[in-house]
């Protein structure tokens, strides 16, 4: 019997489940990883033993995991949510088969995925996301390559580049789409977290000392390789409109880690019918929430970057606030008790969100980059749909992303549009005036690809009871 279901085991989800359980609610946390942590606090395999100091992020993740373990919250780990229904019912696929959960309250804390800008060669093996490089370094103890180009936008650039260099690899260059002025403009907000600002500066200084060039206002325009593996990239400076200049420069490398910011995962909330709006400075489409993090659907709460990018620390605080709202609505806490506990959290959240919002702006979508995608470049990786076919569909009348998907198959493949969705929507938005007008891919179950057999199991046809036919 669950009172509060928390979906997503990152900082928001861990804090929400721990807070709910600590105040006496039956809380269940569902996450697809074997250990909670999400992406930012992603844990290493349990079989790896940490001997040294792995830094403040690792410590923060361990602290939350410990709090969660001590709270009494039930953990449903290694389970993939594939459907949610109002009321609420959540269907998952666990390692040993399908599970179903029912609860009057659900806290969605599903975090973000990475934004990608297609370019010729981006589908080549050896090209990985920035978030993927982070996972390799932090959670799997792998070096993405010996000579890595680190490219894209946002705070992950410094983290990945520094992580590679610290682990014995070489970073050929950091290719940062943001111009120096964009970073400087965020100065006042970055000062809200002097510790994080100093850490980022220390990373960049260490990279400078190692002779790693940091090219502001530049982008990777192509990746080239021989036998199916990346061997070099091509870069260009961005002009005043943010478009790649025509002069291109090659850089040899054996790996490319590239990503352009984070996009909130809102498929669960959309499947439930929560109203969403497009807010570029929060990462994209986000669900409407009140000050207590309630959505407009009774019993549904949204916390963390999945409801709008504010950063890891704000995410943890939001998890606690969402849990308090749910506890108050369920009657487990009185409204006054909940408000009293929430008050100091709100103050912390405001301060934490100031830094997070600076980061969110630095990694917001850059429409000019999508405009520059070459006609022959693959946009939808799963279905091999090049830009030219997307343009043709728009010329033929496709006016939102779902029409475009039906016309071209872009977004129809196994990734369900999670990788190409930003590019597809930007290309449509160019013609219909805004991302809001271009819309979102309709959310439908299953939210993740599943083998049918895993849901229905195996059976003999002889086992199916066949009722007697009705008399004629």
């Amino acid at each position, binding site marked *: 019997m669950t009172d509060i279901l928390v979906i997503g085991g990152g900082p928001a989800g861990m804090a929400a489940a721990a807070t709910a359980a600590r105040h006496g609610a039956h809380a269940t946390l569902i996450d*697809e*990883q*074997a250990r909670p942590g999400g*992406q930012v606090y992603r844990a*290493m*395999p*349990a*079989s*790896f*033993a*940490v*001997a*040294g*100091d*792995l830094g403040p992020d690792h410590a923060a993740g361990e602290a939350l995991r410990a709090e969660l373990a001590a709270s009494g919250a039930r953990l449903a780990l290694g389970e*993939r949510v594939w459907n949610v229904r109002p009321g609420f019912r959540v269907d998952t696929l666990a390692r040993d088969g399908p599970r179903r959960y029912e609860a009057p309250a659900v806290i969605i804390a599903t975090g973000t*995925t*990475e934004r990608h800008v297609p370019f010729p060669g981006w*589908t*080549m*093996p*050896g*090209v*990985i*996301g920035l*978030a*993927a490089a982070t*996972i*390799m*370094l932090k959670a*799997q*103890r*792998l*070096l*993405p*390559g*010996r000579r890595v180009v680190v490219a894209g936008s946002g705070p992950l650039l410094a983290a990945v580049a520094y992580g590679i260099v610290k*682990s*014995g690899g070489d970073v050929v260059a950091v290719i940062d789409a943001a111009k120096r002025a964009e970073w400087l403009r965020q100065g006042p907000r970055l000062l809200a977290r002097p510790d994080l600002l100093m850490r980022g500066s220390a990373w960049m200084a260490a990279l400078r000392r190692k002779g790693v060039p940091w090219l502001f206002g530049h982008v990777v325009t192509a990746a080239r390789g021989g036998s*199916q*593996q990346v061997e070099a990239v091509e870069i260009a400076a961005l002009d005043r409109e943010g478009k790649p200049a025509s002069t291109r420069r090659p850089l040899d490398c*054996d*790996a490319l880690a590239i990503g352009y910011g984070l996009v909130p995962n809102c498929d669960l909330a959309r499947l439930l019918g929560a109203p969403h709006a497009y807010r570029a400075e929060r990462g994209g489409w986000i669900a409407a929430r009140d000050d207590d993090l309630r959505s407009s659907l009774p019993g549904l709460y949204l916390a963390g970057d999945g409801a709008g990018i504010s950063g890891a620390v704000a995410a943890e605080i939001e998890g606690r606030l969402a849990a308090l709202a749910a506890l108050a609505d369920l009657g487990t806490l009185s409204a006054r008790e909940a408000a009293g506990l929430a008050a100091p959290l709100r103050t912390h959240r405001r301060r934490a969100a100031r830094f997070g919002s600076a980061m969110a702006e630095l990694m917001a979508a850059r429409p000019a980059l999508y405009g520059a995608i070459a006609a022959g470049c*693959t946009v939808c*990786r*799963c*279905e*091999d749909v090049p830009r030219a076919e997307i343009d043709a569909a728009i010329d033929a009348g496709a006016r939102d992303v779902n029409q475009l998907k039906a016309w071209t198959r872009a977004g129809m*493949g*196994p*990734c369900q549009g*999670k*990788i190409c969705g930003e590019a597809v929507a930007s290309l449509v938005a160019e013609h219909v005036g805004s991302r809001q007008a271009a819309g979102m891919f309709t959310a439908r179950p299953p939210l*993740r*690809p599943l*083998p049918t*057999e*895993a849901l229905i199991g195996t059976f003999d046809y002889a086992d199916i009871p066949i009722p007697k036919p009705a008399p004629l």
Partner: protein
Amino acid sequence: MIERIRNADVSTPPAVVIRVDDREIEALPGESLVAALLASGRLVFKHSPRADAARGPFCLMGVCQDCLVELDGMPVLACQEPVRAGMAVRLLAPPR
């Protein structure tokens, strides 16, 4: 080349053997299957449906589906599957 980071900060368990197609490779119990495959030098996991272009792991977080492999007859994402000694994996497209 993708390689393992070895330093004193983290100690890993002794390697075990797993089968990938007709080869045996070393892997660390508990690490993700995609990490073991990448560390063994495998970058190409399959080919795209229309252009027959090489594909390999891209997102490492269960989103891109490019690390799909066959394990015990079922399609699984290598990035979501922990290594167990003796597991037998088939790649969807053997190397060309």
